[in-house]
């Protein structure tokens, strides 16, 4: 019976729940869904991780390739992040070129990587102006159930921690490259960004870590990214306005999430060693 009522009047269904300040899946307004992280499971990729935020699943693979650095930044490598929302993860997406949502989120993740400086591009340079690394970071969402950016960022950090770059010696005279697979060095990760998504429901109720139904029904989304409890980026694409203290409240709540993520990462990386 609940199913039909939910599909007939979704918004009313939600309002009844929220009036008793509980959500249909039993969470209170600002509890987060359980997070699962698995790293290094794909050995054809140089670094890989799979993160599961409730039902939302994202796999992140990093492939390193050699390229010539740009003339204007000779000692910098490249980082090329792309989020792919394939038709596999939700009936909303059709096959073919990436949807607008995928493009917006890719650009957001690109900005987060740049602002948080979790990777220093100069570490990717092998020989100035001649040879540098180009890291292709590909996120693929396997199950689209809301707050995809949070899952992507967790997977990003997990994958970056497992990247192993082989040692490359390049002698400029002969312009010959010699890659030695035996000794590989990990990629230094300078900071750990943590992102949290909030949904604004009927302009007043703020739900943390919304599911896809909540995202569809809500009137505004806000993504807050923290870097070791410094604010790194806030993304609020329109929707219902938010007063400043509500915004600060959200930032406080997302601060609570940072230590959780840090020791989740520690445990995940322990067994990978």
């Amino acid at each position: 019976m609940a199913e039909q009522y939910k599909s007939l009047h979704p918004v009313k269904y939600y309002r009844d729940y929220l009036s008793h300040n509980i959500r249909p899946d039993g969470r209170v307004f600002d509890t987060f869904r359980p997070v699962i992280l698995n790293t290094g499971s794909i050995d054809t990729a140089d670094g890989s991780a799979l993160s599961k935020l409730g039902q939302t699943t994202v796999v992140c693979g990093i492939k390193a390739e050699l390229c010539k650095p740009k003339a204007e930044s000779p000692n910098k490598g490249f980082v090329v992040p792309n989020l792919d929302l394939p038709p596999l993860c939700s009936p909303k997406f059709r096959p073919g070129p990436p949807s607008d949502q995928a493009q917006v989120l890719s650009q957001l993740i690109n900005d987060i990587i740049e602002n948080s400086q979790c990777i220093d591009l100069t570490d990717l340079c092998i020989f100035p102006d001649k040879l540098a690394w180009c890291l292709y970071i590909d996120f693929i969402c396997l199950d689209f159930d809301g707050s995809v950016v949070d899952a992507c960022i967790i997977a990003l950090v997990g994958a970056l921690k497992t990247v192993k770059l082989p040692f490359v010696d390049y002698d400029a005279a002969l312009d010959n490259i010699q890659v030695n697979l035996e000794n590989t060095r990990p990629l230094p990760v300078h900071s750990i960004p943590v992102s949290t998504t909030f949904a604004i429901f009927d302009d007043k109720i703020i739900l943390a870590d919304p599911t896809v139904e909540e995202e569809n029904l809500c009137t505004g989304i806000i993504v807050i990214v923290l870097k070791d409890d410094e604010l790194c980026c806030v993304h609020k694409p329109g929707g219902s306005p938010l007063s400043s203290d509500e915004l600060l409240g959200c930032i406080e709540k997302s601060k609570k999430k940072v230590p959780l993520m840090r020791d989740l990462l520690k445990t995940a990386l322990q067994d990978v060693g």
Partner: protein
Amino acid sequence: MPIDHKRINGPEDTLPYQLFTKLNRKSLEQKYKELVQDGKRHDSRAPLEHRKIFMKTGVVSQAKGSAYIEVEKTKVMVSVFDPREIPNRQDYSLKGEIYCEFKFAPFSCEKRRLHQLDAEEKQYSQIMKKALEATVCRHEFPNFQVDIYALVLHNDGSALSAAITAAGLALSHAGVPMYDLITSATLGIQKDTILIDPTTIEERICRTPFWKEKEDNEHGLVVLSMLHTHNQVAQFYQSGSISLDKLPHLIETLEKACADTIPVIQQCLVKHVIKTIKKSSNVIEV
């Protein structure tokens, strides 16, 4: 390569670093010997032994039916969406349609794959569509189309047959009417060693003919999908160069390999049914 404006593009000409590693100068003779050493392959399997298979249904909450398969390292994810109106079709068609898409993840293979479907992926999509069209009772949903999407997360050989088997499971998990369970197996042959369920290295060896002049320089890959109870071949694809008298024997070995994977699927589906019954039964009790 035309620039893809809808994605973030890196520099044009990037080269995989594997090209610059020191090439291990093993002669073909040497590589062929290493294929099977005293009855054991490099991952200590017998030549006709299939890798262990792990399968799970209901991995994608948003899809009507979904399945995940792990053949040791090869990992494939399939999701099935229930029938919807066929796009831009005017006249009434008595048969339902199947739309299939097979995709390698960019990081799944040795060499990075692009986001757009390349020729090989389009061919695999067509082969998979052919296999599933022979399995699904398409007259049950006239004028509608079922979408099936397969994504290879990690390719360590025989990704296509893993995808077809997982697609069969995902379809039955989604409740699409089917004649029979479908399973698929791959076989690589080089000279006279036959390898069931080859890994990427073995696949690469089987793709190249080692001895040009020698007489029995057979080599190639064969993918076969079977409808088990009706004992029907749903799809057959062979590439390379194999003689006529060897093929029937290869088909029998593949038949047997397909039959061995049936119990895994049945067990998976039974688990799924029990779970749904339990879920609906405790709803009634409460």
